[in-house]
């Protein structure tokens, strides 16, 4: 996202950790048109409005007033509210999935060929935007096949006559083929689950998953109960809901994904499924029960948002910076673990510069020099000579380290010197070097 500001994104194909070549394509062109924050915020609002409108259109079997209330609740869900900044692609994922499902629904109503093409196109686009979309379509495919087995459309003899089976289930065949194409590329391009560092960095244990996704899991159970207890809900909607529920369970209990710690509490991995799961509450017939669940959900959402908001105000960063502001006539060595967390990605010059600039004006007055650790991955262009790398460590220097950094990158240079802990909070440690050569 960051590079699309200057020169546009490039296809991330062959990048071992991720497989999302179409991600941030919209920002590439948007940043070619404007960099103005007001226009960018307006753009976010427009995209958010578009996804709300598509949700409104898709759930046309729910009464309008219930739909509007559910959409209001959707807007303040932790996964929605905290992904409103521009660097999240989840809004477009939801739009693409909704467009594909609207085409699917239209095909079921009218049997138009163009609807099939629309479904396949948007489903493919969504899969190449983020991997979690692929998960949803796999689950949808599984649900459709299971339904066919239940209907006796697929029996043992079907495997002996594949062409006849394909003729009987063309849409399932085309969807399965799209997913197969995606999966073959993924196998060739990306590392598998056990060695993929992106997944390993974000995996948590069962207890952490339950704590982080407590609201989403409860909502899933309630929504499942609400939808499957109603006979009026169509098979199509039940299949879609089941596909989303299965993808939530896969993300939470197989992949075990949580947000990285500088995005504390943001449940963006279940952004798309939870939108559909929430709308499932609209299937409740009795108004009293519906408003009871809505009130309860709203109360829980406000509590969770308050907690995340407290964290995002940067209280831990603030505590650390309050300490650092008291320093005078010294050097502050920023360990790469800290510059990684402060910026968002390890060794990206732009992030480190952002960290440096935030301190620079105050520190010039206090005569504090910020020094960064040299690294092979961390190459400064020649014109960036205002960023100082560590040459030697002196007695009295301070070292800023991020606690429990996901990648242990504590500097070898500073570790070898005797030092004393002078500051500690939940996120940071600051040592003072007490002896040097």
């Amino acid at each position, binding site marked *: 996202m960051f590079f*699309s500001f200057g*020169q*546009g*994104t*490039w*296809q991330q*194909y*062959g990048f071992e950790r991720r497989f999302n*070549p179409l991600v941030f394509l919209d920002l*590439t*062109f948007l940043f*070619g*048109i*404007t*960099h*103005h924050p007001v*226009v960018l*915020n307006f753009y976010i609002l427009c995209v958010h409005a578009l996804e709300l409108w598509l949700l409104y259109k898709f759930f*046309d*079997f729910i*009464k*309008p*007033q219930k739909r*509007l*209330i559910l959409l*209001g*609740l959707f*807007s303040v869900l932790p996964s*929605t*509210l905290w992904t*409103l*900044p521009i660097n999240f692609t989840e809004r477009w994922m939801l739009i693409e999935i909704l467009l594909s499902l609207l085409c699917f*629904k239209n095909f*079921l*109503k009218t*049997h138009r060929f163009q609807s*099939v093409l629309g479904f*396949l*196109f948007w489903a493919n686009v969504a899969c*190449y935007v983020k991997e979690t979309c692929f998960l949803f379509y796999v689950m949808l495919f599984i649900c459709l096949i299971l339904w066919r087995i239940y*209907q006796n459309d697929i029996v043992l003899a079907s495997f002996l006559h594949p062409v006849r089976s*394909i003729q*009987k289930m*063309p*849409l399932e*065949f*085309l969807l399965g083929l*799209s997913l197969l194409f995606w999966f073959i590329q993924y196998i060739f391009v990306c590392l598998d689950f056990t060695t993929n560092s992106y997944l390993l960095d974000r995996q948590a244990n069962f207890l952490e998953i339950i704590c982080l996704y407590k609201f989403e899991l409860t909502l899933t159970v309630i929504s499942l109960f609400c939808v499957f207890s109603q006979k009026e*809900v169509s*098979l*199509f909607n039940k299949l879609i809901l089941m596909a989303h529920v299965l993808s939530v369970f896969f993300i939470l209990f197989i992949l075990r994904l949580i947000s990285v710690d500088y995005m504390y509490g943001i449940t963006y991995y279940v952004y798309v499924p939870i939108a559909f799961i929430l709308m499932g509450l609209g299937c409740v017939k009795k108004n009293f029960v519906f408003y009871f669940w809505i009130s309860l959900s709203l109360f829980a959402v406000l509590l969770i948002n308050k907690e995340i908001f407290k964290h*995002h105000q*940067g209280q831990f*960063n*603030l505590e650390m*910076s309050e300490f650092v*502001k008291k320093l005078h006539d010294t050097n502050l060595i920023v360990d790469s673990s800290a510059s990684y967390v*402060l910026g968002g990605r390890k060794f990206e010059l732009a992030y480190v510069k*952002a960290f440096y600039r*935030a301190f620079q004006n105050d520190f010039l007055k206090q005569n504090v020099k910020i020094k960064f650790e040299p690294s092979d991955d961390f190459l400064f262009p020649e014109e960036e000579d205002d960023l100082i790398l560590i040459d030697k460590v002196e007695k009295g220097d301070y070292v800023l380290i991020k606690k429990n950094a996901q990648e242990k990158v504590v500097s070898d240079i500073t570790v070898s010197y005797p030092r004393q802990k002078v500051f500690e909070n939940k996120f940071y440690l600051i040592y003072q070097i007490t002896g040097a050569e």
Partner: protein
Amino acid sequence: MPLFEDHILTNIFDRLKTYACSDIFLPIFALILLTLYVLARVLRPYLTTSENMLENTQESGSSLPPPAKILFTKLIYFSLNATCLHLYFVANEHRYFFKL
């Protein structure tokens, strides 16, 4: 800061060129879409659904609630959205940088 950049068309063209020339994904993606299109054309005569998966759906999109209910619902909806936007703009200010 200007509201819009200078040379918008050139910018877009450059970015399009950067994206299109940076890897081999686009030709592969185009090939996949073309394959799916051809197969869909071949299977077109069979593209009918045997059972109606949409049965039991009672569309209520056209039946609007009474005016009082609309007003009430809209009020709740917009107040929730206003809260959301307020939180968003405040949070955005504090997001990653320190209060120095």
